[in-house]
């Protein structure tokens, strides 16, 4: 959610039950403004909160002018001091895939994972148990990246692509109409498109290249991994992800307010196919 409309956004996203306490809100409002100034971001988003056993991580993201450029991620334990996280790499993803369980809440905590590694010493080749230490910070980075790639969404028309390349916020976005707001095809993944290239020409013919340049949620696998609900007496549409429980996206139809926030344990719901 945009840091500028933090309070309203938190109210709208409160249907999922988790939000922020007043002291956190106050500290966020001030600290995110400072982050925006110090790091020279075009826009700062409050991404969410990852619940750890001992402490919680508060995550923010900074965007540059081009909305689809890789975002910078910052974390804080107390909503006052923010530290920049390194960008996610594939190695990190592979490394942290073996870690299970909750986040501890301590960024320097190290998970121990024993692996069998083949060690070649001269002519002998034997397997040795190696204890690999994975830092929680690495895990945090890769989890945030996975969540972003999988379930960060944006309504259709909120961003538009100029012929010169950069993607801007559409200042004349008036919100989705009510009939469109309930359809999954009106929401896009807030990331570089992956499936768009695979579409046939026939499908692409009806797309508007300045608006439809991202993947829509329609073809997400598994089907049904989004829960679309109307709250507040049909005045608010809320999408909740079932793959990463805790991700809530809200949008008030016919207005400009929209956003998403993640408040959860940072664990993927692998049992999703059984649960549908």
């Amino acid at each position, binding site marked *: 959610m945009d840091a500028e409309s933090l309070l309203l956004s938190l*109210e709208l996203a*409160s*249907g*999922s*039950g*988790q*939000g*922020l*306490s*007043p*002291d*956190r809100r106050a500290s966020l409002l001030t600290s995110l403004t400072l982050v925006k100034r110090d790091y020279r971001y075009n826009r700062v988003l409050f991404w969410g*909160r990852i*619940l750890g*056993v*001992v402490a919680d991580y508060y995550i923010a993201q900074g965007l540059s002018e081009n909305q689809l450029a890789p975002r910078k991620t910052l974390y804080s334990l*107390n909503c006052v001091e923010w530290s920049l996280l390194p960008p996610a790499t594939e190695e990190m993803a592979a490394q942290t895939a073996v870690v*299970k*369980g*909750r986040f501890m809440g301590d960024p320097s905590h190290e998970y121990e994972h024993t692996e069998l590694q083949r060690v070649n010493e001269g002519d002998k080749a034997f397997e040795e148990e190696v204890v690999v230490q994975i830092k929680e910070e690495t895990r945090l980075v890769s989890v945030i990246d996975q969540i972003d790639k999988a379930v960060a969404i944006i309504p259709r028309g909120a961003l*538009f692509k*100029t012929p010169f390349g950069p993607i*801007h916020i*559409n*200042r*004349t976005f008036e919100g989705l*109409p*009510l*009939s469109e707001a309930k359809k999954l095809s009106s929401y896009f993944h807030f990331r570089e498109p992956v499936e768009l290239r695979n579409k046939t020409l026939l499908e692409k013919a009806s797309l508007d290249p*300045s608006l439809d340049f991202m993947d829509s949620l329609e073809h997400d696998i598994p089907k*049904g991994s989004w*829960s*679309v*609900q*109307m*709250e*507040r*007496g*049909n*005045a608010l549409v809320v999408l*909740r992800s*079932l793959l990463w*429980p805790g991700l809530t996206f809200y949008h008030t139809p016919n207005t400009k307010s929209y956003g998403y926030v993640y408040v*959860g*344990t940072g664990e993927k719901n*692998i*049992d999703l196919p*059984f*649960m*549908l």
Partner: protein
Amino acid sequence: MGDQPPDPEYPSRQPWSRQGSQSSEPRRSRELSQPQALSEEARQMLLSEAQASQDTRSSLPRHSLRWSQGAGLPPDGNLPMMAPDARATSLEYSTGLGFPPEFQGYASEGRVSAGEHTTQLLLQQLQQGSGGFFQQFESPYQDPRANLGQFGFYPREEQFGEDTPHGPYLRDDPALPFLPSDLGFVPFHVEMPEPHARELAVQNAKAYLLQTSVGCELSLYEHLVNLLTKILNQRPEDPLSILEFLNRTTQSEWFHPKVDTLQDDPEMQPTFEMAEKQKSLFSRGGGGGEGEQEMEEEVTETVVPNIMEAAFYFQQGGVGLSADESFRIFLAMKQLAEQQPVHTCRFWGKVLGLSRSYVVAEVEFREGEEEGEEEEGEELLEGGDVLEPHGEEEAEEDEEKAADALPQPTWRPPPATPREESRTGANKYLYFVCSEPGRPWARLPHVTPAQIVQARKIRKFFTGHLDAPVLSYPPFPGNEANYLRAQIARISAATHISPLGFYQFGEEEGDEEEEGGAGRDSFEENPDFEGIPVLELVDSMANWVHHAQHILPQGRCTWVNPLQKTEEEEELGEEEEKADEGVEEVEQEVGPPLLTPLSEDAEIMHMSPWTTRLSCSLCPQYSVAIVRSNLWPGAYTYAIGKKFENIYIGWGHKYSPDNFNPALPAPAQQEYPSGPDIAEMSDPTVEEEQALKAAQEQALAATEEEEEDEEEDEDEETDD
């Protein structure tokens, strides 16, 4: 704003001055550069035309054409730099129309040389006091627009605009060293056609624009008129960057005009309905209208607790629904309390579902209130049980009659564990759900132990509809209402906690021994509870206790021996009884007794099942203690002083660090026990038969010899 139209000579000086100042500045336009020599000559042409013109209607187009032909102004490269100057000068000449500044605004983008051209043209027009031009602006904005639209803001877009002898448009002449269409104008040395040909060209251009588009009645001309009207009316900031959007919306507005104010917007219908329903929540119950509201009325006690206070404290911990939602829930529960005979009620929480969510209220009926719906359910169950023994008796009779009866299956379904009585154990409270405050409340049925046992084995999302089937393996006995009730029971039993000492056992309870080790199952509030300091609550889990009974693996809170037969089952033949006895000896299941502290709870993978926090680390003096369950994500409890409350907001599933493994299907059942009667044996071969026969003969011979021997022995003995 200086409104004095300056003398006609001024315009001639103006481009000069601008030209002079601008020539030194670097060019930043992307258009091709022009030889400087063009400017003076073209300017002269322009001036002569400007002064000579009297026909206002065609003057502008003529000018525009001239401009577009003759590079009447400084080369393109310098144009963008004219923006600041032009803006400055335009202020002096502004006629209150505000038109030039807009164009200045466009020009400031740096991409619109045409805007500049237009500006200057129009300025000149205005300065000449051509009132007709002015009028053209005021009235339907038709022609100026058309002409503006004609050459547009992007010179490249409009391919036409140059005069040629043969027709209105100069197509790209390959003889020219550069493409006129790229330039946006025709270089000065091309001949200019006669005035009447120009009029013809204008009319042709306009006719082309008025062509209606395929499939609709809108022509480009009208569309551009609408578009520019809209822009001028709304005056958006930075209209160039939103040009495409404006284009699209203007088109769509043409085809989808705004709905008449008298008609209701069909899209908003559900919103209005919901708002109506919620409005009824806000009206005070029964009685007279507002005029009869008396302040002397006693403020009666209400059974609904102070939900707003609980919501406030939860919000301190970052949990819970928004304040207005909590208030609506409070009103909805008040409505529920009026409709049902409620003794106490509590907001239990919210269970999220796929298409709708459930708002759950925990309710206790007044003493003696019958739950009518439940009795019907019980009768059905009992009827079913009665039918079974009859069926079996008939089968036995048949068996006796038939000579060769099929073997009866010896498997009997295990006896169902009886459901707990209302107001005890897992059924201590009644639960009402609604999908949103304002909608009617629905009551959830009581939970049976079988449902709890099965609910432990499956993991399904709630859809939001109470009558949806729960498709799972092992099959869940019931629909979503039962599954929801079972999950609510599990969550309550696991996560309802209170500070140590808040509840105590009543003094009138008998000893534990009398109750057969089942433990005490009731408690009452401790009037002497002093409250535990928040810091201590956060530090140690021993300061919290469960006040909900633990559910045994059997599915009940108090253990029941499944082998105890009810009276109906004893009517069965005695054969089955004897078979069952002695086969199983079920151990009594024991769970932790009531009011056990949380420190006794089992860990999840070396992690404590509870997390405690102070709500605000910056002001510990006024903080609230928040306890979060790691076993049931979404269950929270707050406590401060003598107040505490539990809530659950979540999906309704337990946390498990391992993946969910669905139960495998049971192995195929055996039809018959294998034994010699039905086991297939291979026939003996010929050799075996012969061997057997030989052996038998030998045996026979051996016995005969023995008999003979015995007879001989006897004979011998008798002889002696």
